[in-house]
């Protein structure tokens, strides 16, 4: 049984200016110990997908539907508040993008670190503090004994992100959801954090969902990658296949627009137009308006289904599925 099994997850925001379809029929599974990368541009639904799984979105306006989202057999979409509380922070840890707004500025780091332990485990305060100290050391904070009782403002950005990671990992979760954990950091600090996540993953055997818009970061860390566009998964494959032979026109376009993969000074591929307005229903493929291969058939009917083209490689492109455009 996979650790996480999500089927047809849909998240909509009911607002005064309309219904925003942020996540449309997202299905995927994640095995224990595996790393799944979730890539896509701003507004593609990566973060909302993960926040929906943990039911972190206020409802209203958010409405989360779907067949199921089973975490170790428990359907998160239908779990009671008590069941969710037993999972959040204990069996599923989460790292948010912005460490400054995710840490409580009024509380010492020590209080924030031991909170999940005091809630979820029968542990004395003293033992919890000892675990917090060990955790701070393992995320690479120098002089952890003195730093343990400091306030968030006394830390630099990279240090705060390490504290966030320590908080997410202190209860030894089975699943870590990391939402752009290194986006706000400099590359040398980013490299430290990525090495740290890999090391802790090996030690704890946890599964990771890694949300990022940076294909470089994903390529080094993840086993599998899902590409999202307009709230849908358009392609999923193991990381090597996705980078070597991307299939979906959107994935190909993304790849052709990255300077790192093009000859120096070469014209970069640019997508025409803008992502679709998610407050209106979309006929057919959400990417059709910007796709160089789209035909009239792409713009009608249901959104194309995510179908496997090879074992472990699936994409949602009608023309590829019909064999009308060449696979490279």
């Amino acid at each position, binding site marked *: 049984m996979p650790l996480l099994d999500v089927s047809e997850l849909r998240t909509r925001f009911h607002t005064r200016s309309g219904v925003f379809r942020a996540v449309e029929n997202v299905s995927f599974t994640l095995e224990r110990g595996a790393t799944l990368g979730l890539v896509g541009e701003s507004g593609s639904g990566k973060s909302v997908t993960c926040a929906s799984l943990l039911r972190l979105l206020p409802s209203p306006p958010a409405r989360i539907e779907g067949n199921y989202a089973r975490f170790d057999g428990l359907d998160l979409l239908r779990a009671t508040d008590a069941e969710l509380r037993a999972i959040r922070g204990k069996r599923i840890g989460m790292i948010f993008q912005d460490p400054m707004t995710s840490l409580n500025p009024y509380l010492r780091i020590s209080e924030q670190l031991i909170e999940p332990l005091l809630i979820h485990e029968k542990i004395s305060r003293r033992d919890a503090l000892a675990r917090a100290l060990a955790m701070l050391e393992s995320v690479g904070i120098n002089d952890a004994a003195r730093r343990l009782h400091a306030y968030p403002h006394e830390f630099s950005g990279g240090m705060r992100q390490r504290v966030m990671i320590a908080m997410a990992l202190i209860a030894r979760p089975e699943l870590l959801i990391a939402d752009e954990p290194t986006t706000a950091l400099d590359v040398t600090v980013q490299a430290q954090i990525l090495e740290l996540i890999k090391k802790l993953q090996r030690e704890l055997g946890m599964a990771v969902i890694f949300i990022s818009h940076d294909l470089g970061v994903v390529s080094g860390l993840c086993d599998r990658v899902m590409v999202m566009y307009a709230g849908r998964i358009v392609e999923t494959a193991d990381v090597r296949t996705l*980078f070597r032979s991307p299939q979906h026109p959107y994935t190909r376009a993304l790849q052709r627009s990255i300077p790192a993969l093009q000859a120096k000074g070469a014209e970069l591929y*640019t997508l025409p137009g803008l992502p679709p307005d998610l407050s209106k229903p979309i006929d057919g493929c959400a990417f059709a308006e910007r796709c160089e291969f789209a035909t009239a058939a792409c713009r009608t009917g249901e959104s194309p289904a995510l179908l496997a083209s090879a074992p472990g490689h699936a994409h949602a492109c009608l023309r590829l599925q019909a064999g009308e455009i060449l696979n490279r």
Partner: protein
Amino acid sequence: MLPILELRDLRTHFPMERGLLFRQRTGTVKAVDGVSLSLARGEVLGLVGESGCGKSTLARTIMGLAPATSGSVWLEGVNITATPATGEARRALQMVFQDPYASLNPRLSVGDALAEPLRVHRLRPAAEITARVAELAALVGIPARSLDKYPHEFSGGQRQRIAIARALALEPRIIVADEPVSALDVSIQAQILNLLAKLVRELGLSLVFIAHDLSVVKHLSDRVAVMYLGRIVELGSAADVIERPQHPYTRALVSAAPRPDPDGERARQRIVLAGDPPSPLNPPPGCPFHPRCAYALDTCKTTVPALAPHAGRDVSCLRAAEIG
């Protein structure tokens, strides 16, 4: 040939003060600390480094937005730090900022935002302004019918185009762009990079391009300068510096930058630097990089290395030749 822009031993220091009534000097932030550079006509110079290394302050000092503490900025052989910037110097040097949401006036329509510099500098008679505004919009790919719209009606990428058009309004010879693509998604980033490359090519502009993404800098730049704690530690051609880095800091920076290549990423040995970049308030003595450098010796703790030729570029490392 005379460089279009030259920086001579430029320093920008900010005093740190405490107290309201009796202000006490408590220290000095040496944001830019002895930078010498020159920029040729039509050249793109990439400026890289991590947050706090002084690259934005350097850009602001070139522009005259931050006062230089010492040293000078020469524009086509004229010292523009010596005299208050004249209209002419202001026109020749224009800046594009990182955040197009913050750098455009929300109360000015795009057409008005583009017309304003033309009126202030009296570059065109009133009758020709509309035509010139349409020309500028076309140059950056903003449709003329959008000129009555306000900044909030545009996406981030379009706003950055408008900010570039506004910089171009004064027919500058040099554009200083401070992280112009950092706030943008990759597909939008590609559009802005293509646009900047086109402008350099077609208008013969010189560009100082600040970014922290090495692949972006390499793509666009002819030469690259790497900054660390207010100083340049390596300066050379983009291919030399980014593909064959020499300074230990540049090596670590290049090695830390993730590349979209799954096998390469798994195979390579990454140099992971310990600790955070030190604060420019209390820079270490000697080589500013020595506390994090794997090659540091005792002499590195006391001697400040000068930028000297090595392996076809300039490197400021006492051990550059030994490390190889």
